[in-house]
Every structure is written in C-alpha cells, then in structure tokens.
C-alpha cells in the first residue's frame, strides 16, 4: 500500500549494534582543559541522545571501566520547543531531545555518537553552555512592543492573515543558538547574528512595534551589526524551527537602506 502511494519509507536501522559508544567532550569548569571520555551503553530501541545521557548519568563509568563524574548537560521540555538542550551531535548543531540514536547510527554507519558543546558560547561544564549573550542581543534590538500599560485598553491593531502567518514563523524562535553556531562570521560575540535580526524583524512587522523601528534598526547598525552577515546562509539550514532567517536579514537590510536614504524626510 505504501509503495503504491509513493511513500518513501524512512531508512531504518536494520542491524543495530549491541552497544553504542558515546564520545563525550568533557570540561570540568569554565576555562578548564577539554578532554573526551567514551561511554558504552547497551543498544535499545527508541533511544534519543537525552535518554542515553540519563542512562550514563546514573552510573558514570567509562568504556575502559574508569569511574568518572557524570556528564552535565542542559535539558527541559524535551519537545524541541525550549531550545535549552542544544549541542553539537556528530558534528551538527541541533537539539539533543530530538536527536534519535537510530538515525544517528544510520547517518554515521558506525556505532559511535559524538557529543560536543556548542563552540561559540562559554562552555560552563561538559555539554553545558551559557547563552546569556543571546538574550542580551534581544535587549540590544529592543525586541518588544512598547505598551502604554498592561491595563485593559481593548483589542490590539488588526492584522492580515498573511502578516500574522509571517510573524508567527518568527515568533517560534527559541533562542537555541544553532544559527550562531553555524554562522561562519560569528565568533567571540563579534556579530549580533540572525536570531536577533529576525526578532527585530518580527517586532518591526507589528503595527505598534513599527513605531519604534528606528531604535531597533539602530541596534543593528553598530560594529557588531547586520553588515557582518557574509550571506553564507548556514543559519537558515540549521534552524530547527525553519525560521526564514535570511529573509529577515534581507528585509531588515532593506529597511536600514530605506531609512538611510529617506529617513531625513521624516525629521
């Protein structure tokens, strides 16, 4: 039936290994030396990276039989909507909750899975990173709507379905950091990056948010601003929420140019 419907069966792990090796980057604390430890766990169906880590945490003994400390990582919603569990898995940045062991083994063809922390953020310990700077970027672009107050002032402005849908796409950003990790321009926090640009775009599209567009664009015109984008387009490829990041960058650039050319008319 499935073949008749033209459905392509997803590749499956037909011959699973008895055990899986997890090569995990370790770091005792901020600034300490990084090293790697390998943990071996028995293969089970339906494992994701998080449940493998939970298994390892219970009794942290390396493959060589050495008792060690449990690997530390961040996790919360486990539904790929909070963004906290992001790490680099087999060389690709993604959420560890939705990284399924079977898929990873098919992808690598082996029985080893490599876990590393994101490299563009301070590495707190093991797989844990500090993404505070991403929240600071949101401050820099004033990613909010200015309200007169939270008391009852009736309904908000009307909006077309088209605008709503476009804004909805941007509203799904969970500040996970995949875009910054994949961006070849971003290092040492030199560039505000796609996340904040897309959030500025999100607010600029709102009828009320539009009124403070100048402040938001100003936040993107500094040394770490939007001109750092090298158009590699890696961000849009790794974004787990399929946010149109390159479009946000393009449209925001357009707004900045427009403001530069015609802004004086409004003065």
């Amino acid at each position, binding site marked *: 039936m499935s073949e008749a419907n033209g459905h392509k069966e997803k590749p499956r792990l037909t011959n699973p290994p008895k055990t899986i090796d997890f090569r995990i980057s370790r770091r005792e604390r901020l600034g300490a030396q990084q090293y790697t430890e390998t943990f071996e766990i028995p293969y089970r169906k339906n494992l994701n990276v998080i449940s493998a880590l939970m298994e390892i945490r219970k009794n942290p003994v390396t493959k060589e039989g050495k008792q060690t400390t449990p690997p530390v990582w961040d996790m919360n919603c486990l539904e790929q909507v909070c963004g*906290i569990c992001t790490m680099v898995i087999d060389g690709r940045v993604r959420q560890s909750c939705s990284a*399924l062991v079977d898929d990873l083994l098919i992808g690598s063809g082996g029985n080893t899975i490599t876990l590393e922390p994101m490299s563009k953020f301070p590495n707190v310990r093991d797989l844990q990173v500090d993404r505070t700077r991403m929240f600071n970027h949101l401050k820099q672009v004033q990613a909010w709507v200015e309200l007169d107050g939270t008391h009852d002032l009736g309904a908000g402005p009307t909006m077309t379905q088209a605008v709503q849908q476009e804004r909805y796409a941007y509203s799904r950003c969970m500040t996970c950091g995949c875009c910054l990790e994949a961006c070849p321009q971003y290092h040492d926090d030199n560039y505000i990056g796609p996340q904040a640009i897309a959030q500025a775009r999100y607010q600029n599209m709102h009828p009320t948010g539009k009124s403070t567009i100048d402040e938001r664009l100003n936040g993107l015109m500094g040394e770490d601003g939007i001109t750092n984008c090298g158009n590699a387009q890696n961000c849009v490829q790794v974004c787990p929420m399929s946010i149109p990041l390159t479009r946000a960058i393009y449209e925001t650039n357009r707004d900045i140019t427009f403001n530069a050319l015609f802004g004086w008319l409004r003065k």
Partner: protein
Amino acid sequence: MAGKIKIAVVGGGLAGLAATMKIAEAGYEVDLLSVVPVKRSHSVCAQGGINGAVNTKGEGDSPAKHFDDTVYGGDFLANQPPVQKMCEMAPSIIYLFDRMGVPFSRTKEGLLDFRRFGGTLHHRTAFAGASTGQQLLYALDEQVRRFETDGKVNKFEGWEMLSLVLDDHQVCRGLIAMNLQTLELKEFSADAVIMATGGPGLIFGKSTNSMVCTGSAVSACYQQGAKYANGEFIQVHPTSIPGEDKLRLMSESARGEGGRVWVPRNTDDKRNPKDIPETERQYFLEEKYPAYGNLVPRDIATREIFQVCIEGHGVGGENQVYLDLTHIPAETLDRKLGAILEIYEMFVGDDPRHVPMRIFPGVHYSMGGLWVDFEQRTNIPGLFAAGECDYSIHGANRLGANSLVSCVYGGFVAAPNAIDYAKNVERKNTETNGVHATELRRQQEINLQIIKNKGSENQYKLHEEMGKWMTDNVTVVRYNDRLKATDEKLLELQDRFKRISINDSNLWATQAVPHARQLKNMLELARVITLGALQRDESRGAHYKPDFPNRDDERFLKTTIAEWSAEEPILSYEAVDIGLIEPRKRDYSKGGKKEGKQPQETLRLAEQAAASGLPVKEGADQIREGGYDQKPENLSGAKIWSQEKGELIDPETEAETRVQQGKDIDAAGGKQTDER
C-alpha cells in the same frame, strides 16, 4: 512613586512573568528567580490556546458561560468566586496579549480568530498556530526584558529556591536560593514572595511536564507550614507517546480518524507488529465496548489502556499499547493528521503511517497546589502563589485552554496584592533577628550533608522507583490497598534517601546536589498526593476509585488541605464556596443533538464492568454514567488538516462535530488536555 519595597517572584513561566510585569510596571523592584532562563520555562509546551469569552462569532458567549463551563468541568470542587473573576478578566487578558504582539491566528477581517475546545459549545479559544503557550510566554518575556533593561527587574536565572525565610511569627521575609553553577547559597530578602513554579509532574517519573517541573520549591514551602490543597487531583491524558526520557502527547484525533488500539494476545509475542495476524491481536477497546470501539470517552480509554498494562499485557510486557493507523492509506493520513504524525516521527523515529504507534496515558497537570485565598495569598503572611502551583481554579479537573488563562490571572491578582501587603507590612530588616542568616546556614548544612553522605543508594534509581510506584498506583485508577502500599513505599524511599551518595565529585555545575534536594522534596509531595487520594473515598473529576465510583457531595464536596508534620501529612477538609452555581450532576449527554437516557440497571452494569476490569459479556450495554444512546460520531469525520489553524477542520460540519466533541470529551471527565 515607589517606596522601598522589594518583591521576589519564584518561577519565570507565564504566571511568574505576568506577576513580574505587573509589579515592575507599578514601579517596584522585583527579584525574579528561575531554574532555567525564563524563556525556556514549561509554559512553552502549551499548544492549543487560551480561553476567553470574547464572543466574536455571534454565539452569545459570555464570561458567565465560561465560568459555568469551568466550574462544571471541574466537578464543582473549585471555589467559585475566583473562577468567576478569572472568566471575567479573560477577554481583557487576550486583548492585552494581542497588543503585546502575540501572533494570534486571524480572521479574514484581521480580527482575532477563536476556536472551539472541549467542555464548551462556544468559539472561545484564541490561539497562535499550534504553539500558543510559546507565543504567550515570549510576549511576557519581551515585556519583562524591557523592564529589566530599565532596571526594575533583577533576573536570577540558574538559581533554584531552596526554602523560605520565616521570622519568629511565621511571616515570610524572603527566601534562600542556590546558584546551580557554583552551588553558592544566597539570601533574597523580600517583603513579599510570589511562588509561580508550576506543576510537580516529575514526581511521577515520566510525565508530559518539562524537567524543571519537580514541585520542589512548593514542597519546601509546604514543609515550612504552607497548606497544600487538593494534591490528589492529577490529570492524566489517555494517549501520550512514551519516550525513554519523557511522555509526549498524541492527539485524540488519531483515534477519531480510525486508529485502533491493540496489544498482542500473547504478551511474549516479539514479532514485528505488522507480522502479527489479526486473530492474535487483542483489540481490547473494541472487544469490551463493541458499540464505541476505540472512540470510547477519554476517561474510559485512559483507564482501559492503563489496566491492560498494569496487568502485564502491554506490548513487550511494558507500559505501552499499539495505536494503529497503518490500515488507513498514507495519503489520507497525511491529509488529515500530517502535523501530528510528524511529531511522532520526529521523536520516536517510526513512521506511524507504516508502524503502529506505541502510546500510554501520561500524567499531565496538577489541579492541586498551594492553598491560596481569593487574593492568591497563602496561609503564610507574605507568601503568595499563582499558576499551576496554586490550587484555586480548576477544581477536580481542568478544561483545555484554561491553564494559560489561569496562569496569567493568578499572576495579575497576586502582583497588586503582594504590593499592598509589602507596603503595609510591619517590616524592618533590623527586626528580623538574623533569620536570614540562620536559614542560610540551615540550608548549607543540608547541602553539606548531601555531599558527604556515603551510602549505597543511587538517587536516580530512587527517583525512578518513586515515579513507577506513583504512576502505577496514584494516577488513573486508585485502590485504597494500593494507595496504602504506595505510602509505605514512599516511607521506605525516604529512609533509603538518607543513604544516597552523589556520584559527582566535581561540584561545579553539578546536577547531583540539586537533584538530590528535589528528590527529597518530591517524596514529601508524593505522600500528600497519595494520602489525599487514599482518604477521598469517592470519584470526582480526575480522581477515580472503582470501589467508590460516584461523586459524594455530602462527604467530599470539600477541599483537601494537607499540612506538613514530621510523621505524615495532616489532612483536613474545608468547605467549597459554591454560592454562585449550585452543584449539579455532570452529564454532557444532554443538550447536544440527542437526549441521552439511561436505565439505572445498564448504568450499574457498566460501572461494575469498568470497576472489575473484566470484559463485559456480549449484550450488556456499554454505557457509562450519564449515558450515550448513540455511537459518538467520528471525531473528525471527513475533515482536512488545516495548516493555518493547526487543527482538523471541516467547514460543513465543524460546528456540529465540535458540539459532539465537546460532549464526548467532557463526558469523559473533561480530560481534553492535549491542548492546554
């Protein structure tokens, strides 16, 4: 304008951010503590929408009807005045979020769109795609960030509250929290503290809750004298996807589209499910309920699936049954259920078009929580609570899309009351007699004890054991003997907890110490839930005892109050304020297309059957209390998946189907929770 007062808010989900925003806006300073960056709080998981009787569809909806639906859905266990206030405030809450820029779905005219949800006949639920909680939380996160930039809000992300600071008169003067990186303990002096820490799902091991939902901070308050109310009311959703790490929801529409629930007749059958012939499959819902089949109401589905697994007949002997869609053409499934199937595929890796899904009921929400009065004040002066961690709105059962509105309502009520209290309280820091330092030392000693403990027990294994016992015995079906045994088990676990040794010698950013503390607190709350259930000899809302299958208003139209003591929770009962709507029997079969009518005898048989867990003999009517006299319609019929609305729609019969759906769901105990 602001005097020198300081308020601490614990928890950065919807309720905590709502309160923070209100306090900061009033010009006062807030310390906002959160275990995770607030934008990553559990509120992001809410999907379906937020209720408010805005009545934009010409249906004559009103806050009064929302109020009635909520009280009725909660089986009359909620005090009615705050529920009424919430329903009256709900439309303005939705409009406020609209002004803050939440991308709510729109009508053609550009106005807010509303959809129907279970437990109501009205289009009352505003929604942003299929992820409303995420958008609402982000909107508050943005506003709070704005106040943070203005210096009104001090965020402490990565800090976990350990205990309250109480003075000699049991008045709350602040709290002690731990930095999760450094394990540094710090006192947060505050004139008022608002708890907004969410639910305690992790007590059940795996649940639909996020990993921060331990209930630990609330348990700490309880152990310091805060009353905990209606702890036994835990909502369980019938179909969730059992993961190795957590449970994720699977929408009811899968069964609506013809999904069949089964297990192998032979539990040891290790074959690929598709290789097991029809005759060797047990379609237990269809066998036991020939009239309704897989479309029995949710509470029955939940209980039956649960029973099969507890008796060891789940797939592979584990807590899972098949929900099979593979007999339906893949293209039909894609059209009708696409987005839902993608979630399953993403997390399980199996394609449900070709491999039967494995599902199991999942703990989802706690109706119980810290006792609060109608102003969100706990019994400890200076301590307030809002959101899932307070007990006030949902009674014995929560209606879908009511949780988001109750979070915001709670925060909005708690905030001005906390300000009022803080302004008027007799308070001078010099008069606290060093209570902060004393409490800090006490907490430090607890940490030291945990760190130096050298025993043979493993904290994660204890947690698993607690979760298993609680899930097996204190969720869907409750028997007094098993509840007693569970409490004994919890006592044993408390004892064994004293002999854990943390397995992390590196204390920097260790998760072992915080987890150990959470586990201890979870065990305390687990006893409250278990003993509350044990003593409540009736069935009401989410609480079901086969030995006491009826609601007993005479004895139990009361709020359960638990107070901590060193030996065990001390339970007492408080009258419910039912002054606005007189309690009536919950019966959703009336008022739809057809009147349901039930001979008493049939009803009794059906109840017996449900209680016995045995298949009902052919010929016996499969009718539950309240009654059905027709097979519920296919819940989704010939609908199409609407990407825009994020739900199944059929323009022609939508209204009618929704009426039926609301009926079915609520006849099922109102457990329509896959969308909050």
